Structure formats: C-alpha cells, structure tokens
C-alpha cells in the first residue's frame, strides 16, 4: 500500500510520518507541495511542522498550495487523508474539515505526553483501535486550540464527528476537549496529537500511534 506524505516548505515531521508508515507495513511515498501529482497513492498524510513558518495563520498558506487542490478533489472522492497537527490545520484551512485551530489558551507552545480517548474506531484511520480505548500520544503545538461556533460544535457532536478527545487534562484549551475530528464519511481525519511520535518503544512514550497507520492499511485492504 502506497501512502503519500506531503512535504510543504516548513514541514518538519514528514520524515517521522514516513517512518511510521513504514513501521506499520506500508510504503511511504514523498509528495511535493508544488506538484500537481499525487503519484497514485492509496492514502495521504499531511505531516506536522510549521508550513510557511505558521505565518499568517497555521496551515493557511499551505492550504492554498497546488497539490492541495488535488488532495481536496481526491478526498471528496473518498481518498483517505490524515492531517497531523499542522496537517490538521491545513485540512481545516482547506475546508476539508470543519472548525479552526487557534492560539493555545495559555499562549505557550506545549509538548507533553497526552492521554486521548478514541471515540470513533470506525474511520479509515482509527479502525485498529477499540471505541473508548485510552491511548497516550505526544502533543506539541502552539496553535492547537480547536474552535468552532457552538452550534457547529453541537452538530459535530451530534454527528459523532469527534474522533479523539483529550483526557487527563486539556493541553491547549480546545473546545470540548476535542483533539481530532473526521469528515462525514470517516475518510478524512485531522488531529493535533502526533501519532508518528509514538511508534517505537525507544523514542516514544508508547507505541499507540502505530494504530492510526495500521488502520488505514487494513481499510485499504478491505476496500481492495
């Protein structure tokens, strides 16, 4: 299975995302923001980092890059897309996911090992988990506070669009402790925590993050 990992100018966790894909058993494929070429991948990961320095708004400028037009079109056609941290910000800015990510409530960048509750174990990116499972994955962001109008939040909750929620403390003041959301069809998922940093005992606080990458591989097998 070929999983594309997009590099924007200022992407940082692209190498990590590629490693996670590999450790999960997939084949990482490097994609370049300025190309109009998805290289026939079976799914796409938008990695963390500071695309365009987080200038203007995190993810805003990357969301308008050439390749994102292709990603948006392919996602509307069902291509699984995962946005991690800056990738999540890009997906919101590109309109593929609802809401927005804003400056952390405490105004600091924060990196810590974070408890998460998996609320949807039936998306393309979370099927390896059990619903209600608690996992630990690093968070690290300065603009990770998820916001949307209250009515919009109610709608998302009603539709079960919250995929993961912070537990044991909210690291950034996100509305309703939301850590990640999904598109209505469960194919596009965005989350602030970094599953690609929890894929090896040696370097991560857990290996819980692998589940996101194994999920999409099995989703693709099922689809095939």
């Amino acid at each position: 299975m070929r999983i594309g990992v997009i590099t924007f100018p200022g992407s940082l966790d692209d190498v990590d995302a590629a490693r996670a894909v590999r450790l999960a058993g997939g084949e990482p494929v490097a994609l370049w923001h300025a190309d109009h070429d998805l290289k026939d991948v079976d799914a796409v990961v938008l990695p963390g980092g500071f695309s365009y320095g987080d200038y203007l708004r995190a993810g805003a400028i990357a969301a308008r890059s050439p390749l994102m037009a292709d990603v948006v079109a392919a996602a509307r056609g069902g291509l699984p897309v995962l946005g991690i941290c800056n990738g999540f910000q890009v997906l919101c800015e590109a309109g593929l996911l609802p809401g927005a990510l804003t400056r952390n409530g405490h105004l600091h960048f924060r990196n810590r090992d974070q408890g998460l509750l998996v609320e949807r174990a039936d998306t393309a990116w979370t099927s390896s988990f059990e619903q209600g499972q608690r996992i630990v994955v690093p968070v690290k962001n300065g603009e990770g506070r998820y916001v949307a109008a209250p009515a919009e939040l109610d709608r998302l909750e009603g539709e079960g669009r919250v995929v993961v929620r912070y537990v044991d403390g909210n690291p950034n003041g996100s509305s309703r402790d939301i850590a990640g959301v999904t598109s209505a069809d469960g194919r596009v998922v965005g989350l602030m925590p970094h599953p690609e940093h929890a894929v090896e005992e040696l370097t991560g606080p857990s290996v819980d993050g692998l589940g996101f990458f194994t999920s999409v591989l099995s989703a693709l097998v099922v689809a095939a």
Partner: protein
Amino acid sequence: MSATEGLSELDTAPGRTNRLDTVALATEQPDDAQPYAELGLKDDEYARIREILGRRPTTAELAMYSVMWSEHCSYKSSKVHLRRFGDLPKSDALLVGMGENAGVVDVGEGYAVTFKVESHNHPSYVEPYQGAATGVGGIVRDILTMGARPIAVMDSLRFGRADAPDTARVLPGVVAGVGGYGNCLGLPNIGGELLFDDCYAGNPLVNALCVGVLRHEELQLAKAEGVGNKVVLFGARTGGDGIGGVSVLASETFDAEGPAKRPAVQVGDPFTEKLLIEACLEIFAAGLVTGIQDLGGAGISCATSELAAAGSGGMAIDLDAVPLRDSTLTPAEILMSESQERMCAIVEPDKVEAFLAVCAKWDVLATVIGEVTDGDRLTIDWHGERIIDVPPRTVALEGPRYERPMSRPADLDALQADTPPSSSADLRADWLAVVSSPDGADKSWVTEQYDRYVRGNTVLAQPEDAGVLRIDESSNLGIALSLDGNARYARLDPYTGAQLNLAEAYRNVAVSGAKPLAVTNCLNFGSPENPEVMWQFAEAVRGLADGCRELGLPVTGGNVSLYNQTGDVAINPTPVIGVLGVHADVTRRVPTGWRADGESVLLLGETRPEFGGSAWAAVVHGHLGGLPPRLDLAAERSLGEVLTSLAADGLVSSAHDLADGGLAQALTESALRYGTGARLNVTGDPTAALFGESVARVVVTTADPAAVRAVAEAAGVPVTELGTTGGDALVLDGLLELPLAELRAAWTATLPALFGSPEVAVGTVPAGTVPTS
C-alpha cells in the same frame, strides 16, 4: 553615539559631503579624520590599519576592520589563553578541530558529528525573544556550514533572581524565543540548564548548542579556492537590522542604562532558515560547492574576508549585487549588517545554474556577488568604484591580540576562608527547600515549550542527565550530550570550577551509558579589561585544558563571551561545558527515573562533607564561600568506565548523577520521574550524605546488586547499598519520610508560581458535555 549613527555620519563627514569614500579618495585625502574610536577601535589598532594599507582606510574598510577586530569576532583578549586547547594531545576521533565553524568528531560507521555552543547574552537582554531566537539560528548555521544536518539543540540559561521583576520580563521571552526558533526549524531540544543568581540580573546568559551529523565524505570547509569560482550569497535579503549588532554589542559593558551602543535588533525568521537548511543539504549532496560560510556577527565583512583568508587567492565582490531589503543602506552598513538567515558559498562556474535551481526549488533567494581571484586582495566595488582593497588575512586572522594584565581577585582569600555551615538543623525542611528552589525545581514550565520529539530519533531528553539521539536506525548508533556550568564553583576557584563543570558533563554523558568523546565550551565572563576577570578567565581555560588532558578528550570548539557585567560588577565566571559521547547501541541507554518496585538502590562513589558552593549552602544559608568540592578526575574516569560497561551489559535500570543539591536532589528526581518511591538507609553524617556535593558519584538501581558491586569494585569505585525501590514515599530510615505527593507538589510548584501557570488550559466547554464512553 551608536555604532550605526557613527557609520551614517561617515559618508557625510566634512569635506566629503555626498561623495562616496573610495580607495582613490583615501589615497588622495590621506589625512581625513575618521571616527574610529566610536567604532570601538583603539588608537594603536587604527594606526595598524593605516600601516597595513599604507594609507587611511576608506569608510567601508574602517567598518570592516572595526567589526572584524571587535572582541566578539577577533577574540583579541582570549586568544593567547585559548591556545591551551590547541596544545592538547591529538585525538584520533577529531576530524576537524578548533578554528572552523565547529569541530567535527568521528563517531564510527562512517558518521561524524559536529557540535558547538555559543552565547547570545547581550542581544537577549535587549530583546529577549528575538535575541534568544537568533542565538539558536546562528549556532544552527555554524553546524550546517560544516556540511552536517543539524539534528538537535540544547540551551543553557541563567537569569537574575527568580523573583526579580526583570527576570519576569526576560525569562519568558528567552524561553519562547529558544522554543519558537528551534521548534520551527524542526530540531528537538534535548536538554540544557536553567539557573538563577543575582549576578545575572543585568546580564542574563543565553547559551545555545547545536549538534549535527554528516558522513565523513560530506565535510565542507569555509574557504574560497579556485580562481574564477563564483561567490554566491543566499538566503534572506540584507537589511538595516543589527548593524554591527553582535560584534559591537557583545564587546562592551552595559551600564545602568543598558548598552550605550544600542543597535537595531535582529528579527529571526526560522522559516527561511529551515528552507536554507534543506537547500544547503541538497546542494551539498549534489556536490555543488567548494566552500561555504554562514553569515553571523559582522555579516558580509566576516564571510568574505574569512573565506578569502582561508583560501590561497583573493576575492572580488560587487556589492551592488547584494539583494537589499532597504535601498537606502550605505555600503558600510551593508558590509556590517547582521541580517539573519544568510549563507555564502563558493561555486564553480559550471555548477552555478544547478546551485541556483536548488535554491529556487526551496524559495531561497541566491545571487552571485563576486568571484575568487588570483591575487591576494579582497576587493569590493560599489557603483563601479572600489571601496575596499585589503589583504583578507589582516582582516580575518591577523587582528589585534592582547596579553591583558591579570590579578587574582582581591576578595578570593576571604571568600575561600569563609567556609559554609556544615550541619542541617532540619533535614526534611532543607530537603524541600533545596528541591523547590528555582534552581532545583522541576523545569517542565520551560521544557514543555520545546519540541523534544521531532525527527523521531530522541532517545532521552530533558529531564534526563544527558540528551541521547539515535543516528542510525539500522545499527542503533547514537550520541549523548550534556551541558553543565556551575558558576558558584568557578567563583570560588575558577581553575577547579571549570574542571568540575567538565567532570559533571562527562559524568552526565556516562550515566546514560555513552562513552565521552569530545568537549565544547562557552566561556561567559566579565570585562577582560578588569585584571581580576582576566585572571578568572585564564584560570578557567587552564583548568579546562588540564581536565581535558587528564580525561583524554579534545576541545573541538566553543565560544567566548566577555563584557558580561553591569557597571563594574562582573557576573560570576561561568564556563559552560558541553560533552559529547557515543553510544554503540542506543537501545542500551540508561534513564534516570525509577520504574520498578523491589530494585536495589546503590550509591557509586565516595561522599565527603563538602558544602563549599553547594546548592544547600546557597538555598538554606544564602552562603557562598569556602572551596568547591575536591576534584577527582581519575575517579570520574573509573566511574565513567563502570557506567558504560554496566549499561552495555544491561545491569542497571536507572542511573542519575549527583551534582547540585547532592543526594537529596538526585533521589527526588529519580523517584518523581515515574512516581516510584524507595526505602533507604544512609550512614555517616546525614547533612553530608544528603546535601554534600562530592564529585564522581551516581545513584543506580538494579535487579542484580551483586553483579553491579563486582563491576564497580573491580574498577575501584566504592559501592554503598542504600535500600530498595517501592512505595509512594521516599523513606530515609531514622531521618525523614517524604510522601511523593508532597515532594512533587513542592518540586513542581515553583516555576509556574513565578512565571504563570502552565496548568491545563480551561476548555471552553461547560463540564458535563464530555462523553465518558
């Protein structure tokens, strides 16, 4: 008058109004008065420039010499002492030694590592966020220049009293700046220091370290060779910010009103630097450069003169080609500008196109500004006229050099005679005081602002004793790094203090299981024009050199920061020492925290009643005096070998070095890391046992105490069995009992209380709407 004002007046000096000062004019009008003193040059220095050139310098030449001959760029006060490092025995591991942008060390398997620590003290006081940020940016470019991919940063920070109002201004900005820049570059921060002392109130220290990795064959050097090769300036445009900034700012004392010469501050752009890194690495991989230099202090003046001086020919630059952000800059200002995120490369003519293409791919502006010539002059033209014509070596290498007068501080005897108290009236209260003091307290408020995970190779990071990084995913080859600098010890005895700092960094690296390999350092001192400061400096250098000789380690490079003082009062001498170690297999790394119940807790090394310069004396008694702990490098070496072998054989599950705060501090940190207590028994004088700071000591935990004892004793390292892990308290039989919850509350509360709560942010949700399934 500020350096900038001095310069802008140059071109409008009487008799030269509206006329560009050229080499021709300087020859024609040799007697024009020049404001060299305002630019920081002494009478004899100016006279030497005239002698070198055989005429007066042009305005642009004067600017160039003044920044290059500043203390910051020329090391004029420190060079005669630093020579001691160069005299150390040759090390096989050292591929590139001092003098290049950073030293390069062979770590095996064809990999090399380059690392260096550098100060950005003065700019960080003026503008904490940008000062610290650009400090990180600068050291990262030094590492990149060697051909390496930067892979991590560390930061060593010192501020005035934690509760002083100015600390509340400076510290949050500095921490945010270190984090803001490093995080945006994608470099994990793997450790550092955070310490407070009144002596830094008007002069905080911000030292940043960067480490990079390369294959041996990827090494790049900063020299201009090959007549006809092009000089390419790339990265950010040149602006009017920081003209003469680092060089002038870091070469003088701050008075009560702050720096007399207050140049515009530089604003960092980490995004551009990230692009510069990726572009450079692609350029190196494609073999497109023959030499490369970063632009830091003294900007284009420094890069061109150093590249030319290191090569065998000359260089001709067309200054009009330099892309500017501000078209009103004078040529002297362009030459002195310290605009960030710029590099300069030497490129063969037939590779220029490919070079520019890589830059274009990464949106990096790149411009050919000159070429390597066959003469021995560096010439620079502006609007078709020659404004600089100098022998580059005289600018870059043959600056002034002083043997400044030295004298042992007059108060030192009294200070050393003033021995500290040696007995605690209340061990429990003192324990809590030490671990909750700003120096001893939990540093998460700071370190949570740093990304420690990016790149996915961080094996250990703060709050571990050393940062450990994996370098090769298939072989698990890795490195360890620690930065340490106890200025109280150095104040009491700079010779021994520098060695104690080296010993601590060495021990921290060994504790992780690594074999120490090489040393970098940043020497932060007061004004070299004060003979007592100069003596402290010389003693510290001598101590560090002697220590390195005894431990068999080369000094690969470093940085000197002088004029760290407010008015007449110098900071405590602060030599910050970085030690690099190598891990043959990072999966064998040893962490500091206790995880399992029922393991034996052993103390390796010998405890003596030593309180001079200790954290306990400072925190509990407000005392600084006596002598620092006795140095024992032979013991450090044996201990280091024992630790490396215990790690390789998997015999210990944790190891934590004893330093500031002694056993009390170490036990607190090991227990709180994962919330595992212990029941222990210490013998001998309890104050010495808990708070003494004898060197060459480590606490380890093991499931096989007999095996550990055998290894240690075979190497002559004393072993004391302290007790067993388990429970939710630290119990020291007959002395005290500290529930971990109480200990944690005390240890973690300090920095948030001082600098704002980092606590869980309040969600915007009414409680109860969060599903519990």
